[in-house]
């Protein structure tokens, strides 16, 4: 394996604002890399430097071993990109967009084949100005695939896509990865990235907060399912009991509600809900897929949290012990 994308101390400042701060990151050949971060973390700025839309304030980016800015043309010959904020030429049809990309890349693709692959055959002859956001996004994916690029850069590629479109996108990413392409996939939605990525990097405030394989990161960050339970009251004993429950990683106490982060196991959820029901405070509940914001808030510690104590230490807070003493 050799590195395809290398960020080497990349810093980008706009006026007084630092969008990307000393970013170091390596993406290996053939890898599908998930570039995660909330909106405004600097993902698009990093990608814009990578494709020479923006010049670095400091540091450098190289792609295929070439300087991403000085030798951008050579980089883009081997790259297909779908960028956030992408706009179409309203007067050109979808097919003309793809044909233009084929001509520019001196590729030999069949435009109709590419359009069929993204499910846009029916609208291929219509002007792109009349496309919905999702159709424009499908067209953009077709354009990115032109010339079977060695590197695919997808910045928030599922923007505007309906669930069906998102499934098509995932299939395409998997096919391209299977073909041997390196995929750089940026998103603020964890599920999309973890569905396709081999490795994930999390960008926060312009620098890399975490990096690793999907499973490692999941474990490290305690990302699982969140149970959002409405309760009539929050007895301290219940919270302590929940913290001690197997599979529960974290309990957040709100106003008449509990957020319980746990692994996605059905038995764990059942144990949690039973515990709440037994305490006699259960009103309603909701299951949420772990969102990246949960991860980030954990990282930045912006929410009041009761951390699950380690098993060994659970005795000190054992509600049974406390009640036993009073007897």
């Amino acid at each position, binding site marked *: 394996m050799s590195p395809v994308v290398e960020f080497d101390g990349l810093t980008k400042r706009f006026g007084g604002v630092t969008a990307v701060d000393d970013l170091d990151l390596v993406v290996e050949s053939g890898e599908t890399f998930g570039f995660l971060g909330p909106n405004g973390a600097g993902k*698009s700025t990093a990608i*814009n430097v990578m*494709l*020479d*839309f*923006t*010049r670095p304030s400091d540091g450098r980016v190289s792609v295929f071993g070439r300087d991403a800015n000085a030798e*951008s*043309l050579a980089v*883009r*010959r081997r790259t297909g*990109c779908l*960028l956030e*904020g*992408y*706009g*179409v*030429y*309203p*007067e*050109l049809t979808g097919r*003309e*967009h793809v044909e*233009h*990309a084929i*001509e*520019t*890349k001196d590729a030999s693709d069949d435009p109709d084949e590419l359009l069929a692959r993204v499910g846009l055959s029916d609208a291929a002859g219509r*002007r792109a100005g009349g496309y919905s956001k999702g159709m424009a996004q499908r067209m*953009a994916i077709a*354009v*990115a695939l032109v010339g079977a690029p060695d590197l695919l850069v997808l910045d928030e590629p599922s923007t505007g896509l309906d669930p069906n479109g998102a499934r098509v996108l995932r299939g395409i990413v998997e096919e391209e990865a299977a073909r041997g392409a390196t995929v750089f996939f940026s998103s603020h939605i964890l599920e999309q990235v973890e569905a396709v990525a081999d490795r994930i990097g999390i960008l926060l405030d312009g620098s890399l907060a975490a990096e690793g394989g999907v499973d490692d990161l999941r474990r490290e960050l305690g990302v699982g399912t969140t149970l959002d339970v409405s309760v009539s009251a929050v007895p301290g004993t219940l919270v302590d009991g929940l913290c001690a429950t197997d599979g529960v990683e974290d309990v957040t106490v709100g106003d008449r509600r509990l957020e319980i982060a746990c692994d996605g196991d059905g038995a764990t959820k059942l144990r949690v809900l039973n515990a709440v029901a037994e305490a006699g405070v259960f009103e309603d509940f909701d299951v949420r897929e772990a969102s990246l914001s949960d991860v980030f808030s954990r990282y930045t510690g912006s929410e009041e949290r009761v951390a699950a104590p380690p098993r060994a230490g659970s005795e000190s807070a054992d509600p049974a012990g406390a009640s036993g003493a009073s007897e």
Partner: protein
Amino acid sequence: MSRADVFRRDLRSVYRSRTGTAVTAIVALTTVVAAGLFALGSGVQALAGIGALLVVGSLVALVFLGNPKQIAAVVVAFTVLAVVVTLALRDPTTGVGARPSMGTAVLVAGGGLSFLLPLVGLIGSYAALVGERETGSVRFLLGLPNSRDGAYAGKFLARTAVVCVPLVICLLLTGAIVALTFEDGSFLATVGLTVVSIPYALLFVGIGLTASAYAETSNRAVAVVIAVFAVLRGGWPAVQFLMLAGVEDAYPRPEWYFWIGRLNPINAYVKLTTLFAEFEYGHPLLTAPGEIATVATTHSFAAVVLLAWTVVAPLAGLLYFRRRDLL
């Protein structure tokens, strides 16, 4: 060849939008329609009035019209109306001997173009680059392996074609009308007028493109081109007049007055149009040098000035576009 790809794509977009038709309409009204009206009638003042109303009416119509076909239809309708009015107002007592002169042709077409070609060139190019940044299609343009130089050159060539193709066709048609119906009318002289009009048009396409490369929004680009037009058209003579305020005897104009005035590309162009007809009392748009004999008032100086502007105007934008952040 990315330049050629960008050129073809951009030309297609422009011709399917309003810009291409609007530019063609304005050029046609200034040249072939105006000459045609003079061929039909000979009352110079009445014709000037009709022509001016026609141009203003068409320009107002262009503001409200949506698609190219509607624009073309309105321009044709106005032309027919003007022809009818001209025929109705024609003085039946004037015979063949009162045919308009070649001087009138150069005065009308050259004078009209000296005013309208800047507008047409600027309108045709101010949005070329900044517009793509605003809509996001620049991510398509430069996500593909197009170099910045190639993209800039392709845009310049496309916008040049948008202005110059109708310009050349209309002036050649004007030449035919002039040769057939005007007194001492010369097709060759009209070809000469065409040759000097091309760099004049290019120079304003170049200024518009430079504004487009520089500006952050298309509103800003519009402000820049309006300012440029105001400076060349009004500010330049204003400075000359202000400087004259310190001179005891303003007549005849001092030599420096011509050195400043003839550096203005509009004056350089008007001076060059006087090559193609006899002007007994000088061209009404130029200050007569009287006894002053200086290099500044020669045709060669005007040619050098015009070509220098034509080269510098687009290059300034290219140099800026090469190193700026696009996103």
